[in-house]
């Protein structure tokens, strides 16, 4: 979002405390991650991690470039199919099939970006939405690869580097944790690099970035492609974790879901999207057995977030730390 926040100057999402707060939360999270399978159901935590990575990758363009993509489901889903298919039919090892998924996500991202990047704001959102809808229809019709509405079932987890079997739940769990942490570190590195600084300057004041001589569209396109590739890694990892890829992954509602995760956790904060994703995934699991109407509840959370809780959980936390400091 080209977040200008002119009305709430103190509420700038990447305030000067976010670094420290993120570090604290990050440390807690890593410890929690290592201990989680002993407390929580590992299959669930793995799924939450995949979506956390998805949301963090998505936040790279929403939070740090200010582009709202309504089409990230296309990258997530296409990569899930690519990883699943390559693992099942080409016999690729898990790390290679996930990389392949990332590649496919990146290629789709590049194409989407190439078409959409010249437009901003709402236009950008609607164009990416329309493009992802095309990918959905393709997925529905290319049943040879996707299995149509049956989904691509029975994806094997395979053997890491051809050596370590991932069928053991705990091994798979730490593999997913490793994928998540590597990608997360990469995102952190990008955001805090000179490249990231240019991105943020585009978000804050695009005309100024242009006048400083930056080829803004190219920066945006690179960031968008990166985000799509990371989304692809998330989608691929999910395909191996749940052992299937389906139309759900590529449906436009999935794009809405990742926006909700990011918004709930905190747009433009580093760990916020991960927190938001964990919450949304837990919520969906909880709602499944609660008898409450799922869509309505998700909608209400969405509306509440937009109306009164725009900084998200981590954003509010940062702001709280900020207030205490003053």
């Amino acid at each position, binding site marked *: *979002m*080209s*977040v*200008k*926040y*002119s*009305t709430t100057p103190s509420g700038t999402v990447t305030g000067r405390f976010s670094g420290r707060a993120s570090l604290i939360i990050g440390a807690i999270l890593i410890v929690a991650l290592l201990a989680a399978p002993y407390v929580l159901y590992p299959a669930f935590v793995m799924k939450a991690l995949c979506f956390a990575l998805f949301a963090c990758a998505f936040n790279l363009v929403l939070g740090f470039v200010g582009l*709202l993509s309504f089409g990230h489901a296309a990258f997530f889903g296409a990569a899930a199919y690519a990883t699943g298919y390559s693992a099942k039919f080409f016999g690729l090892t898990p790390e290679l099939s996930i990389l392949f998924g990332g590649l496919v996500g990146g290629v789709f991202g590049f194409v989407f970006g190439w*078409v*959409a990047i*010249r*437009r901003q*704001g*709402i*236009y950008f*959102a*609607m*164009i990416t*939405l*329309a*493009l992802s*809808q*095309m990918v959905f*229809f*393709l997925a529905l*019709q290319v049943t040879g690869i996707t299995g149509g509405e049956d989904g691509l079932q029975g994806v094997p987890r395979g053997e890491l580097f051809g050596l370590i079997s991932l069928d053991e739940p705990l091994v798979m769990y730490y593999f997913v944790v490793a994928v998540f942490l590597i990608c997360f570190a990469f995102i952190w590195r990008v955001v805090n690099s000179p490249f990231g600084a240019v991105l943020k300057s585009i978000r804050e004041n695009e005309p100024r970035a242009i006048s400083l001589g930056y080829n803004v569209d190219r920066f945006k396109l690179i960031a968008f492609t990166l985000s799509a590739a990371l989304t692809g890694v998330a989608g691929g990892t999910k395909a191996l974790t749940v052992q299937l890829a389906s139309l759900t992954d590529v449906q*436009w509602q999935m794009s*809405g879901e990742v*926006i909700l995760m990011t*918004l709930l956790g905190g747009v433009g904060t580093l760990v916020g999207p991960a927190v938001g994703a964990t919450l949304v995934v837990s919520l969906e699991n909880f709602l499944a057995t609660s008898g409450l*109407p*799922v*869509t*309505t*509840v*998700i*909608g*209400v*959370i*969405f*509306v509440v*977030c*937009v*109306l009164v809780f*725009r900084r998200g959980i981590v954003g509010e936390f940062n702001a709280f730390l900020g207030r205490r400091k003053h």
Partner: protein
Amino acid sequence: MFELIGIPPQALFGQLLLGLINGSFYALLSLGLAVIFGMLNVINFAHGALYMLGAFVAWFLLQYLGLGYWWALVLSPVAVGAVGIVIEKTMLQRLYKLDHLYGLLFTFGLALILEGIFKHFYGVSGQSYTTPDLFKGGTNLGFMFLPYYRGWVVVLSIAVCAATWYAIEKTRLGSYLRAATENPRLVQSFGINVPVMITLTYGFGVALAGLAGVMAAPIYSVNPLMGSNLIIVVFAVVVIGGMGSIFGAVVSGYLLGLLEGLTKVFMPEAANIVVFVIMVVVLLLRPAGLFGRER
């Protein structure tokens, strides 16, 4: 009788006419979106849900009050418009100061809520709403059988679109509206109550969606999900027409209906994608849309 790429001309006329009928819905919905976008700078994601609401209100009127189609045609848009006004007054209004994308996200959440509520109480298999007696049956045009009701849909849709266009482009009220879009402060300083105007515009825009819903009720089954897939196509229509351009929204609505109609004959598998393909092509050639201008 000559054939055009394997399709007899009668069939082609038939399909074009059907395309025009579908285009009537696209045009009405994209018109509402364009009116709202022009004034509020908000893309109303809840438009599909409000279209569904319009159809349901028509069904409620028949089911619980015994009021038929003609009543629904008037009352249902009014009811949907009123809902819109309440939403704008209580919630949407707070978001104008922020980035426009928050408006999009808010209305997205709203759409989920509306759909969720109706799914919860009325199920998903849909309610049936019969065609009004006046339009039962149809006539054979020689190249196809045209149900009277579909003819009525085209006529009504063109009339409403034309009237709206006229009201905005040619009347004094319309000129206030257009001026307020360009420079709200200046218009406010002339003593015109801009916030009220914005509220009413939103109400009017969603009322158009409600009207489209009533018109759709006898053709499609009235069900909570009827708007959710339609809305994305209509988004693409608005982008193709050029956002904010009333004329563009209406014309591209009909045009895309026609094009989609043709695709259904020549390449039925692609009928759902054709609108998006055209959108991509248009964006590459004319980034602001067919009738839009760069802002």
